[in-house]
C-alpha cells in the first residue's frame, strides 16, 4: 500500500526553538492515526504540515492525497452564513452543482443531528453544535484524509462523548484516513487504529494500540498527564 502522507526526518524551528525534532512516519489509506503529545509538543505544527498549511524547516513532507477535511480546535465556520451554507460552500468550491451540494450538505447535517437547524446562523447554536457543523463540512467534501486538531477540546465532557460517537459512526459509514492530535490520553485512545506519541525529547514513536482504558492509563503513566482535559498538567 502506498502511503498518502509521508514525513521524512522533519524538523521545525522558530529561531533557536526546536518545535519538532527529526520526526519520520507514514500514513496509509484508511489508517486512523492518533498523535499524543503534551501541550506545546508540536502537535498542531505536525498536523498543519500534514495539511500543507506550513512547511518544515528541514526534511520532507510528501502528500499524495487529493482532498482534505479539517476540523480545527475552533470551528472556523462563516458566521454570516447559515448552517446549511457553511457545508454547501466548500462543495461549490469543489465544483459540485448547487442542488447536489444542498442534498449532500443536508444529509451530513442530518447525520450530525442538526436536522431542523439548517437555516440557523452559527451565533444561535451552541459550541458543540457549531463544531458538528464543522465536522459535517469536513465529511461532506468526501476527503481522502481528515485532519482533526483537538477538535473537541473546548467542549464539556458529556458533549465530547457524543461527538466521538458521531465521529466513530461517520467513520464506519465512510472509512477515511484520519490524522488527529490531542493532549488528552483518553481522546487519543478512543478511535485510533495507530498511535504515535511525541516523546519528551521531541522524537516520535509508535506505540501498540491497546484497549482504550488501558491505553489512556499507559499514556498517563508515561507522561504524568492530568485526568480528563489534562490542561495545566504539563
Amino acid at each position: 500500500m502506498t502511503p498518502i502522507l509521508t514525513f521524512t526526518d522533519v524538523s521545525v524551528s522558530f529561531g533557536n526553538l526546536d518545535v519538532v525534532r527529526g520526526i519520520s512516519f507514514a500514513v496509509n489509506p484508511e489508517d486512523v492515526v492518533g498523535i499524543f503529545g503534551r501541550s506545546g509538543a508540536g502537535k498542531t505544527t505536525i498536523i498543519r504540515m500534514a495539511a500543507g498549511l506550513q512547511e518544515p524547516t528541514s526534511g520532507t513532507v510528501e502528500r499524495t492525497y487529493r482532498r482534505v477535511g479539517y476540523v480545527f480546535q475552533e470551528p472556523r465556520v462563516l458566521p454570516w452564513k447559515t448552517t446549511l451554507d457553511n457545508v454547501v460552500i466548500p462543495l461549490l468550491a469543489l465544483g459540485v452543482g448547487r442542488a447536489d451540494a444542498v442534498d449532500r450538505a443536508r444529509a451530513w447535517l442530518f447525520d450530525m443531528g442538526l436536522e431542523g437547524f439548517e437555516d440557523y446562523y452559527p451565533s444561535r447554536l451552541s459550541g458543540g453544535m457549531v463544531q458538528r457543523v464543522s465536522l459535517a463540512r469536513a465529511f461532506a467534501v468526501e476527503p481522502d484524509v481528515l485532519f482533526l486538531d483537538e477538535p473537541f477540546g473546548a467542549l464539556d465532557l458529556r458533549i465530547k462523548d457524543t461527538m466521538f460517537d458521531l465521529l466513530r459512526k461517520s467513520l464506519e459509514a465512510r472509512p477515511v484516513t484520519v490524522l488527529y492530535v490531542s493532549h488528552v490520553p483518553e481522546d487519543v485512545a478512543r478511535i485510533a487504529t495507530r498511535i504515535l506519541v511525541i516523546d519528551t525529547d521531541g522524537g516520535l514513536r509508535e506505540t501498540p494500540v491497546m484497549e482504550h482504558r488501558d491505553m489512556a492509563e499507559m499514556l498517563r503513566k508515561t507522561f504524568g498527564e492530568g485526568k480528563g482535559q489534562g490542561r495545566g498538567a504539563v
Partner: protein
Amino acid sequence: MKKTSSTTKLLISCAGMLLMLFLWHIASLRIHAIVLASPADTFRAVVRLAGTGRFWSHLWASFQRIVAGIALGGFAGFALGIVAGLVGWVRYVLEPLRWLLMSIPAVVVVVIAMLWFGMGSAMVVFITALLLSPIVYINTVRGFEMVDRDIIEMARIYRFPRDLTIRHIYVPAVAGHVASSLIVATGIGVRIVILAEVMGASEGIGHALSLTRSTLEIPDLYAWVAVCIAIVGLIEYAVLKPIEHRIMRWRA
C-alpha cells in the same frame, strides 16, 4: 449594563428631541426674529413652502444629487477598498490621494469643480462622490484588515477559488463596516450637496437657501435647514439602517 429595549431607546431619543425643540423655543423668545426663527415659525414656513411647486422641484433636485453622490462615492470607495484589500500595493498607491481628499476643504473642491464642470448637477454630484469615496474606502480597507486569518486558512484548506473567497468571505466581512460608513457619509453628503448648491447651482435646496438669505426670509431659511435634517433622517432610517440590519442579521 442592562440591555435597553428598542422602544425605550426610541422614547429617550424623542425626549432628547423635545428638549432640543424646547431650548430652541426659549432661545427664540430672547433672540430677535431676524437672527433666529422660532420652532413654530419654522414649522409654519415648512407648511407654506410645501404648498408651492418650487419647493418640491428644489427638494427633488437636491435629493437626486444626494442619492447619486452617495451611490457613486459609496460604490467607488467600496470597489477601490476591495481592490486595495486584495492587492497590498494598491493601498499604498491610493494613500496620498485618500489623504488629499480627506484633508482638502470642501469649498476648495467646489471652486475647482465649478471651473471644470460649470454650474449644476454634474458638478454637485462629482464633488459629493469624490469627497465621500475615501470615507467608504477606508472603512472597506479596515474591514479587510479585520477579516479573520483563521477563516482565510479554512478557505485555503477547502480550496475556495478566489471568486468564492471574495463573495462569501471578504464581501460579507466588510459589508457591516461599509453600511455604517454609508450612514456617516450620508450626513456629510447632504452638507456637501447643499454647500455646492449654494455656490454653484440654479436650483436645489442650497440655491433656495442662498435666496432666502439674500431676501432675509429667516423662517424659510430655517425651514430649509429642517428639510435637510429630514432628508438625512429619511435616508438613514428608511434606507440605510434597514440595509445594515439585514446585512448584520447573522449576529446574535
